[in-house]
């Protein structure tokens, strides 16, 4: 037990040392950490709200504040003034002290004085509070230009990091949960392992229909209404439905167990798990992924980034599942699993303690590649303007806005570069992982 644990950690340590030796992958790992930090602090790094502002004797921290407004009291005449953070004109305010964020623009707020594609090296103007037009102060420059509406490209890029990384990580979490579970199930159980008596199988089949009827079909209008009320209400109703569903199913399971006593119904039925899952994978991979995702997002009622994540997650687990399945198939024939079985360990222990940790390594590689392709898919979708809400600034939507005017090269080069770098980083990371985890390639 302790030996095995040590072995495991040794294995991973070895992989890590190997991974570090691969300079390219290691740099990518560092870039990834940088991007993650950037994504986390993006709303504070690139925002038009100042970090700190002292105005008429009141100190404010608009960028870090949860409330959107602040009441000022004039010490001289006792009048109160209200400042609403998101619409206040900070750049023209004659505050006593003001500290701006490093990038002084929010991604989806327009700078009307510099609208209509102002390039990074073009003349940018600033209108002072007394109406004079002057050259842009260096502090307020649009370092990477603006788009047609006058939105700052750099700010959009920084805040877009968030969307991209989130899409990559969340959709791949969904995909890897499904993929590892189904792949593991198919690989470990095969066609000949999962079996039950006829009584239980038939009773459960009927039970599934009945449980679905009482759990979801009869309550369909409850659920529908709950979804239109609020998310928490919907969650509650779905939970109730789930409980009813599992209770009815359990009831049928007991009935099935009782039926087993009849000799005819005691005969065992094998459930071809592997064949079923392999077929599902085959069907999914025979549809062009992008067209499938586009078709599904067409029926999503509202455009939201969460929907895109879920759709990408639900459609891109096949690679992970196939690798996990193959790995499980290989591992279950190995001696140490056989000896674990011979020692009389429980199935659960064999799967989770012995098989899964070894099978997960190749899946990890597939996940790294999957993140890259999920990011690519998302940016393609927002490039085409499908599924992603139009007011959300992402790398893809920025790139798309550059298509309308060929002279605005900065709208094409920088967002594209951001996508390219992120995708490359994940791909290189995947390769590094693959080399590090493959003992044959170790020196």
């Amino acid at each position: 037990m302790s030996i095995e644990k040590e072995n495991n950690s040794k294995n991973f340590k070895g992989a890590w040392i190997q991974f570090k030796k691969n300079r390219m992958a290691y740099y990518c790992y560092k870039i990834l950490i940088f991007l993650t930090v950037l994504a986390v602090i993006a709303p504070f790094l690139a925002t038009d709200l100042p970090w700190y502002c002292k105005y008429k004797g009141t100190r404010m921290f608009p960028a870090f504040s949860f409330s959107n407004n602040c009441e000022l009291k004039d010490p001289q005449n006792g009048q109160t003034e209200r400042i609403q953070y998101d619409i206040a004109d900070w750049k023209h305010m004659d505050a006593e002290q003001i500290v701006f964020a490093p990038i002084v623009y929010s991604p989806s707020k327009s700078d009307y004085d510099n609208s209509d594609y102002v390039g990074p090296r073009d003349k940018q103007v600033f209108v002072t509070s007394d109406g004079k037009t002057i050259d842009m102060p260096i502090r307020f420059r649009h370092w990477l230009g603006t788009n047609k509406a006058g939105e700052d490209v750099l700010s959009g890029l920084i805040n877009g990091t968030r969307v991209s990384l989130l899409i990559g990580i969340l959709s791949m979490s969904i995909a890897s949960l499904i993929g590892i579970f189904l792949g593991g199930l198919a690989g470990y159980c095969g066609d000949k392992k999962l079996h039950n008596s006829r009584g239980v199988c038939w009773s459960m089949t009927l039970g599934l229909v009945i449980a679905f009827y009482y759990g979801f079909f009869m309550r369909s209008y409850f659920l529908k209404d709950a979804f239109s009320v609020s998310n928490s209400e919907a969650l509650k109703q779905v939970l109730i439905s789930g409980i009813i569903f599992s209770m009815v199913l359990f009831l049928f399971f007991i009935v099935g167990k009782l039926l087993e006593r009849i000799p005819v119904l005691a005969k065992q039925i094998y459930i071809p798990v592997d064949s079923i899952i392999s077929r599902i994978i085959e069907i999914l991979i025979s549809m062009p992924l992008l067209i499938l995702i586009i078709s599904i997002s067409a029926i999503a009622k509202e455009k939201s980034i969460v929907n895109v994540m879920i759709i990408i997650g639900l459609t891109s687990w096949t690679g992970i599942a196939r690798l996990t399945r193959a790995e499980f198939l290989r591992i279950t024939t190995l001696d140490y699993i056989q000896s674990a079985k011979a020692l009389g360990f429980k199935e659960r222990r064999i799967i989770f303690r012995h098989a899964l940790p070894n099978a997960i390594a190749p899946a990890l590689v597939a996940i790294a590649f999957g993140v890259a392709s999920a990011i690519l898919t998302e940016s393609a979708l927002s490039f085409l303007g499908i599924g992603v809400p139009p007011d959300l600034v992402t790398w893809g939507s920025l790139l798309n806005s550059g298509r309308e005017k060929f002279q605005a090269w900065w709208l094409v080069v920088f967002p594209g570069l951001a996508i390219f770098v992120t995708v490359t980083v994940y791909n290189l990371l995947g390769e590094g992982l693959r080399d590090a985890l493959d003992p044959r390639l170790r020196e």
Partner: protein
Amino acid sequence: MLTYIVKRFLIFIPTLIVITLLGFMISVNAPGDPVERMVSAAESGDALNSQTKNQQEQAQYWTHKLGLDLPVFYVSLSSFAQSDTLHKIYDRNEREALDRLISKYGNWKEIQTYYQQLNVFDELQFTATADSAILHGPDRNKILDQITAIKSETIQLKASYEDVIIQNKFKEIEQMLQMYPFFAGAQQQLKSVQESYEQIIATASPWKNYIPQLNFYSNNQYHRWLFGDGGKFSKGLLRGDFGISYTTKEPITEVIFSKIGWTLFFSILSVVLAYFVSIPIGVRAAVKRGSHADKVSSLLLFVLYSMPAFWLATLLLITFANPDVLHWFPASGVKPVTGYEEGVGFWNKVRASLPYIVLPAICYTYSSFAFLSRTIRVSMLEVLTQDYIRTAKAKGLNDKQIIWKHAFRNALFPIITVFGSVFPAVIGGSVILETIFTIPGMGSETINAIHTNNYPMIIAILTITSMLTLIGFLIADILYALVDPRISYK
């Protein structure tokens, strides 16, 4: 071999069925009412009654034509209380309202009576009993407005299911009807509607909802979608009829036939080009492993591989199709805007189209090219370390023979298997590239369909591209059998 191909085809059938099911599920769940979209805007005219009548008839016609008055699928789960004729009601809101009433009260018979009474009320000619003098008098517009108001209230009533709301609507309509004496006939009808509603509540039997019921329908929407209805309105997907486009009302098959050419042209061209270019590069890189050329080409291929197609396409456009930088190629389309000159031969047409094709072809090809080269390099590397290669060297064969005759043939398998994944990637990629280069193919049609909520088109494209992918798999399998003599497929 032939039996193998036939077998492979047979395996495709379940896959295809599931794909059509998935497509069908998407189209059934699509938001919006297709009938509403098909009914053209009502003709202008002040005969209000006949106008709504006309619209209703049109709606009924389209419902029938699109097969929406049929049950959805072969099997359906319902409660004992539910009627099996509910699907014949073509208005989605009304259907839902009735369904909700059933799930609340459970007595379909009474609800049906209520609905029929309501329909009778809705179809009443309010002005039939009126004096023509009043109708053409100064109050004419007022009366018509009143009738419109009552009509809209009735439509809302039909779609309501909550007790409070229904009672409210009853009251409102009653008040409106009291305004003019010649509405008396309508009032009578409203009374009977109200009575039938009270009957529903009085004889409520909600227990019926707790009894599940399985229904089977031989004639249903899915069946009709697949097999058609005997050629009356649709020939069915199996005979190549995908229905009609919601936007232009043209048959979808015709639209796709006119578009699929360019998509196939670019996909096949790019796959062929990619294979031709990548084989020598991959093999060379593997043979000269570790050399300078290998390192440079590896890096370059990797960069190409992770380059987003839409970025490269846009970059190419703003450099080579931009009048300000280099205007070597046109920015959009596949042929001159004015069309081909009349009476020119095939080769002249090709020459006219060539500048339009170059940039898209590059974008279509580069990513599969990079992927293929890398695959070939890896598989060659593996083969070159095998014992039989050493034996061949020891025998004194020259490099060319070793590489092409012994190593390459065995390194071919992986790149044949990846054909199955290269082809769908190319077809899927066409969605983006055709939009950027405005190529009139299936990809740009997909985007059009999405933006206009043209669901039958989306489903048709999903199904067709999946079929093309399956054909790609089949080709890969056959090629595999041809190259590898060990495989006999028996």
